[in-house]
């Protein structure tokens, strides 16, 4: 189904079977992405954002198992592929940039070796051609003196430089999809902007899609077409960037937005943090996972998982507050007094 999507993840359920018990890392996750689009997956650590992306190229860490659901890439069902078929996709059609450039490069090989490796693996290029291509890639990602860099070892380069190298490796085979797993978290703020700019520039040049995984809403706002907000292994809200930013429906999304520093308001506003601690995935709460931290939490939220509420083709959320009964009660309440954390 849906040939139009480059990435199509449907009802994915994935669990990690740890010695301490089953951790339901992903619960009914749906992701759709067209060629050339950028999707941002936002959430705190452990919310399942990386697991979602990794499962797409079979990089799920060891005790993790896909329970149900199907994953399509470019019309092929990825979860049915053999390891050998997967290998042809990895690094070739789907590439990943990891969070920590300091540890993601092998310390005992030169930069040149690590870039040409992926080129010779997926193309018929000779060693010399691969080397020429590697040089070209380094220029593309804005590294000066590429000739010299190719002969250097990772520890001789700075963090920003290494992340550029990681991008060069990822782009080596002109992938259709680039997964960027918190690509700027480990970098200095000034370098962050450069790296993001570079990624967007290359996206336009090469026409690829990007899945951007981050816990930083500021990062996704500038570059994503769609945003999926994840919490405790579920997508709690999904919509276009404008919808999520200007009409957030889920209380968690609202909390995230309130906690971004804003420069466009004149008055001096305090940042409002989200109270409480993240969910213990081994002992998740019975109802809505965000319930215990939600300021508008209702009794039902602690008993039952909320159903889906769809606002239009692109915007949906899982929140009891968006249900008819809650709306009615809130309407009745607000006629009496004004509520602080109300609707957008």
């Amino acid at each position: 189904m849906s040939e139009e999507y480059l990435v199509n993840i449907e009802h994915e359920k994935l669990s990690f079977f740890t010695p301490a018990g089953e951790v339901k890392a992903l619960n009914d996750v749906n992701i759709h992405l067209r060629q050339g689009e950028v999707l941002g997956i936002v959430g705190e650590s452990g919310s399942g954002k990386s697991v979602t992306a990794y499962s797409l190229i079979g990089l799920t860490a060891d005790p993790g198992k896909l329970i149900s659901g199907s994953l399509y890439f470019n019309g092929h069902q990825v979860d049915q592929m053999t390891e050998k078929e997967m290998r042809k996709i990895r690094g070739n059609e789907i590439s990943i940039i990891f969070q920590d450039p300091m540890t993601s490069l092998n310390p005992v090989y030169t930069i040149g070796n690590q870039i040409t490796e992926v080129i010779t693996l997926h193309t018929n290029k000779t060693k010399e051609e691969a080397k020429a291509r590697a040089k070209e890639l380094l220029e593309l990602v804005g590294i000066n003196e590429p000739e010299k860099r190719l002969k250097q070892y990772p520890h001789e380069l700075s963090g920003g430089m290494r992340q550029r190298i990681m991008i060069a490796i990822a782009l080596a085979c002109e992938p259709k999809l680039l997964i960027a797993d918190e690509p700027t978290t480990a970098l200095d703020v000034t370098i962050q902007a450069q790296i993001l700019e570079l990624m967007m520039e290359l996206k336009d040049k090469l026409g690829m899609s990007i899945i951007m995984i981050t816990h930083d809403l500021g990062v996704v706002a500038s570059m994503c077409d769609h945003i999926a907000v994840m919490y405790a292994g579920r997508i709690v809200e999904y919509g276009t960037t404008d919808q999520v930013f200007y009409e957030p429906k889920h209380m968690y999304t609202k909390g995230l937005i309130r906690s971004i520093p804003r420069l466009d308001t004149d008055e001096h506003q305090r940042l409002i943090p989200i109270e409480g601690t993240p969910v213990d995935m081994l002992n998740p709460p019975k109802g809505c996972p965000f319930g215990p931290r939600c300021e508008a939490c209702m009794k039902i939220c602690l008993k039952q998982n909320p159903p889906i509420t769809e606002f239009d083709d692109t915007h949906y959320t899982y929140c009891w507050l968006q249900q008819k009964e809650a709306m009615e009660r809130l309407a009745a309440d607000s006629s009496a007094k004004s509520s602080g954390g109300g609707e957008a």
Partner: protein
Amino acid sequence: MAKNPISFQMDLDPADFLPATEEEKQSQVIMRDSISFWKDGFRRLRKNKVAMVSLAVIIIIMIFAFIVPQFYPYSYDMQIKGANNLAPMQFSAAEQAIIDAGGSVFPHFFGTDSMGRDYAIRIMVGTQISLLVGLIATAIILCIGPLYGAIAAYAGGWVDLLMMRIVDIIYTIPDVLLIILLSFALDGPLKALATVPGFTWIQTVGTNMISIFIVFALLYWVNMARMVRSQVLTIKQSDYVTAARALGVKTSTIIRKHLMTNCIGTLIVCATLQIPSAIFTESFLSFLGLGVAVPLPSLGSLASAGLNGLYTYPYLLFIPAAVISLIILSFNLLGDGLRDAFDPKMKK
């Protein structure tokens, strides 16, 4: 995607849509207890079956080595007439006569050696000697190593450089060669010293044993010194110590709280693993005839003596060999367990 907005028709109680109280919210949050480092470590150690079994084996061996010989009817140097080279549980002709006459004779569980000495008590005393060697050697190392390492790390600069160069040199000297050489060279002087009143104990222990201890004191502490030095250096530069200092915590508190907790785990592990290595070395030297003085047995010298009659009395070799292996194995496994439990860096 299933499109049925708000058509999730169930019997929903309107009362459920009232705000939840704080208690109701908190009842859903299950917090894992936070526990102290030591408690956590002991809990993990207790869960480690292999380590607990090893600990039990070590305790049993210690009982046999240190307590049982006090009550044993035979002594390690007592030669029983006519009871040479008895097989395990066998009695000599004289003893058999006593039994036939209705008397009772304590059995020779492991038989006797060529000089008619009960082998079981010799094994027990031998184990005692071997364990003592391991424990004393480790105690010596524990005194020198950490102190040396800590001084080097704290002093820093050229003092540190010089001290570590010395460590480098000592590290590359082959230890066994030096032990052999030293036990050889110290033999005479120590024998002379043993005649002096107050030093006669040297005679009993044997000059070789003293040499072994001297070499341990000279050479074996380097690993521990290196470890403690790097540990202290890391801690000195670590963010939490900087943070503690910035908060105005006293230096003594920092040392006690951060340094000790970080080092003691590693030191315990290191010491536990040092004991078998010392026993290993002693048994090896005893085997070459450079160990304890006769008639005092050690497991190594027992095995060495057993080698001569290997084909006729194989148990004379295999029993001490098995005991050595069991001791080393238990200490190694316990050490591994301790490391898993207490070495914070090993925590995954």
